[in-house]
């Protein structure tokens, strides 16, 4: 029993070292990346994680058009900011 526990301790120390080594390498990789490619104002059209944006556009357009048509105002007098579909 004792032998196996000491083996487990050995394995643990070793494994934690490996984990820290791997993640420290990863940290430096990330730091290098971030330094090499600094943040710039993002392309405004790219909304990466939005699902089915066309549908959204259509919905916004439809609601806008309805409101505009109904109230006799021009659609560009008001704006629907967002209908988040998820």
């Amino acid at each position: 029993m004792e032998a196996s526990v000491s083996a487990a301790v050995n394995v643990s120390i070793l494994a934690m070292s490996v984990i820290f080594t791997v993640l420290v390498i990863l940290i430096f990789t990330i730091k290098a990346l971030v330094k090499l490619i600094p943040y710039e104002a993002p392309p405004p059209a790219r909304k990466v994680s939005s699902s089915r944006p066309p549908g959204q556009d259509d919905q916004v357009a439809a609601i806008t058009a309805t409101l505009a048509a109904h109230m006799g105002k021009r659609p560009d007098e008001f704006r629907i900011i967002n209908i988040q579909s998820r």
Partner: protein
Amino acid sequence: MEFSFSSSASKIVHSTAFTSLESGDIIMLAVACLLIYLAIWKKFEPLLLLPMGFGCLLANIPMSMMASTDTGGLLNFFYQGIKHEILPPLIFMGVGALTDFGPLLANPITLLLGAAAQIGVYMTLIGAVYLGFNMQEASAIGIIGGADGPTSIFLASKLAPHLLAPIAVAAYSYMSLVPLIQPPIMKLLTTEEERKIKMEQLKPISQTVKIIFPVAVTIVCCLMLPGVTPLLGMLMLGNMFRESGVTARLHETAETHLINIVTILLALAVGSSMTADSFLRLETLKIIALGLLAFSFATAGGVIFGKIMCKLSGGKINPLIGSAGVSAVPMAARVSQKVGADTDPSNFLLMHAMGPNVAGVIGSAVAAGVFLSLFGDAGSGIDTHAALAPIIGTPEPGMQALATIVEAIKK
């Protein structure tokens, strides 16, 4: 065949499950109901525990052929997806599609918190060995402390398939208990001043970096720990779908219907492995106790390392975000937020805690990779035949017939 009334009636009576219902089955049916109860009324990871509990229910109806070991049964087919390590990587692809690594990239040093929280894995490993488990079993049990269901299932199916059921149950149950387990430990280990530390706003990250990150992680981590490639690689592929901006269709599928389908199959299969034989044993109790230990030590490890980082950074890092390093995304990060806000309602730690939180996912995958390097046999391809034998049968009957002929010739 005769179909007299009495013989038929007797056949029906004998084919009811009551005739072979044993006390173990009844206990397991109760366990199944308990899991379903916890899923629905206590909201314990319901997406997994509900189908898992239902799978357990089905598997423990005698003669229903729904246990994971019933060759040719429905859930046995789904179980092949676990045995061959197909389903957990697919889940991880969905997780990747759902995960925003932005906060981690904005503050990469928090990866260390994701590493520190793995101490729970190893305290548990030692404890498990002490309780008599062998090294492979102890590794699979220890990874419960990683607080990642798919990682636990992946590793258990590889190193200790006979312990899959209790390990999966423990992993998901304790993950749900994060809001109960963590706060007392966090408060115990931190001072009020530490909990009040406000962190600087995260700096924005270029989309290009977000796109390159998954490739970088795959190359760096998988080259060092190739065993974890199916898990970590698929996580990163899912994230690639998300961040690339050119695969919106695949991203949507990966994060919705594909992960949902795989979750149903995986959870049913895990549940089907919860039979009386495999679950009602002393080991299960030990694993459940060790799982609690794992989570507590993981939390403590994260918080203590957070305190160290707080010191080294001159008080810029709030140690409460350390506990999020256990993963359990996004619950653990919310716990950090809540404990922080309890002390100072104007303190918003959520986004800061998301860094160590997603780092914990990578950390546990790396920990699993280390175990696979140490205890996984590289030539696991050879296992496939044995693994498929239950479905496709073995050629042995024919073999034996021939062997009999050979015997006959001998004489």
